[in-house]
């Protein structure tokens, strides 16, 4: 590793195997970050500055081991991108408890554990950044997404309160709320449903990976040290 690589900033991205997380991992690797990614299944992303841990984000021991590996391999941590998330689209009356459990455990418990373990490591960096993932489904009160939207409402609360708790450690905590973006998460949803959803946005189009990355870039900038506890929804949703 060159001196540059040793000094470069370090980021953890959950759910880096595919979708938005994969795009962000490749993008930040290309701009010189060192990245530790994770997902439940094996990941085929290969880059000299990329490491991957297979763990469920809701597995406390697995998450602890991941951050120990960050400490051992990189010796520092500058940002945590809490991207791993799952959705469930179904009428509430048809939703089994097991679905509720798994959505809450990935989206809420996973986000919490990454915030907690990440903040412990970032205490030393004097400029830590946590970016969480919300969704427009919450402010739009989307029918059929009660559990998913509720889990992301919890992520919003975590974001706002952790912003206060971690400010003394110079760590900012913000969230990005994407509109629909074409990934496996939205593939199963009928297109008529998606069209109806997009029609409720101010800017009526699908979101692109770059739209999400633009917000993450903004939160990560050194100049954004005064921006914390914010949730930025895309597409003009508020």
């Amino acid at each position: 590793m060159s001196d540059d690589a040793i000094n470069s900033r370090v980021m953890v991205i959950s759910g880096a195997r595919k979708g938005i997380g994969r795009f962000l991992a490749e993008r930040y690797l290309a701009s010189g970050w060192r990245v530790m990614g994770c997902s439940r299944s094996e990941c085929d992303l290969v880059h000299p500055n990329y490491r991957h841990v297979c763990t469920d984000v809701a597995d406390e021991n697995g998450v602890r081991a991941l951050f120990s590996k960050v400490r051992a391999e990189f010796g520092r941590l500058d940002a945590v991108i809490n991207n791993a998330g799952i959705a469930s689209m179904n009428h509430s009356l048809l939703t089994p408890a097991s679905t509720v459990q798994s959505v809450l455990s990935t989206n809420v418990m996973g986000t919490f554990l990454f915030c907690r373990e990440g903040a412990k490591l970032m205490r030393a960096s004097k400029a830590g950044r946590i970016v969480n993932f919300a969704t427009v489904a919450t402010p739009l009160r989307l029918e059929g997404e009660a559990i998913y939207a509720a889990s992301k409402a919890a992520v919003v609360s975590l974001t706002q309160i952790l912003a206060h708790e971690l400010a003394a450690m110079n760590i900012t905590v913000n969230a990005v709320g994407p509109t629909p973006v074409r990934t496996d998460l939205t593939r199963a949803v009928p297109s008529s449903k998606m069209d109806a959803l997009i029609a409720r946005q101010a800017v009526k189009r699908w979101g692109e990976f770059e739209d999400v990355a633009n917000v993450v870039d903004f939160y990560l900038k050194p100049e954004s040290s005064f921006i914390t506890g914010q949730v930025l929804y895309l597409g003009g949703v508020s």
Partner: protein
Amino acid sequence: MDRQVIAQAILGTLRNFDFPDLEKVSAEFTEETILFGREGLLDSIALVSFILDVEESIRAKTGVSITLADERAMSQSRSPFRRVSSLVDYAVQLLSEQLPTK
């Protein structure tokens, strides 16, 4: 677990700690030093950082990860975070529960 090792780890952490309010800090820290509560060295934010530092230093010394601020600690009528001595006792107790008895 040798109590002395843990006491040294905690006192060492205290000596290296980045105190928000330097005026309160004396040169000598002992097991009698009051950490938290009335006349304590640490406010609640500093206590969080201090506990994390202690957990880290115990992990470095013993290889064992303990969680000091668990529900049990929070619900005790006499807080283990009051003095260095009570924190040492509490950490030793948690460690002895985690390590297999020889």
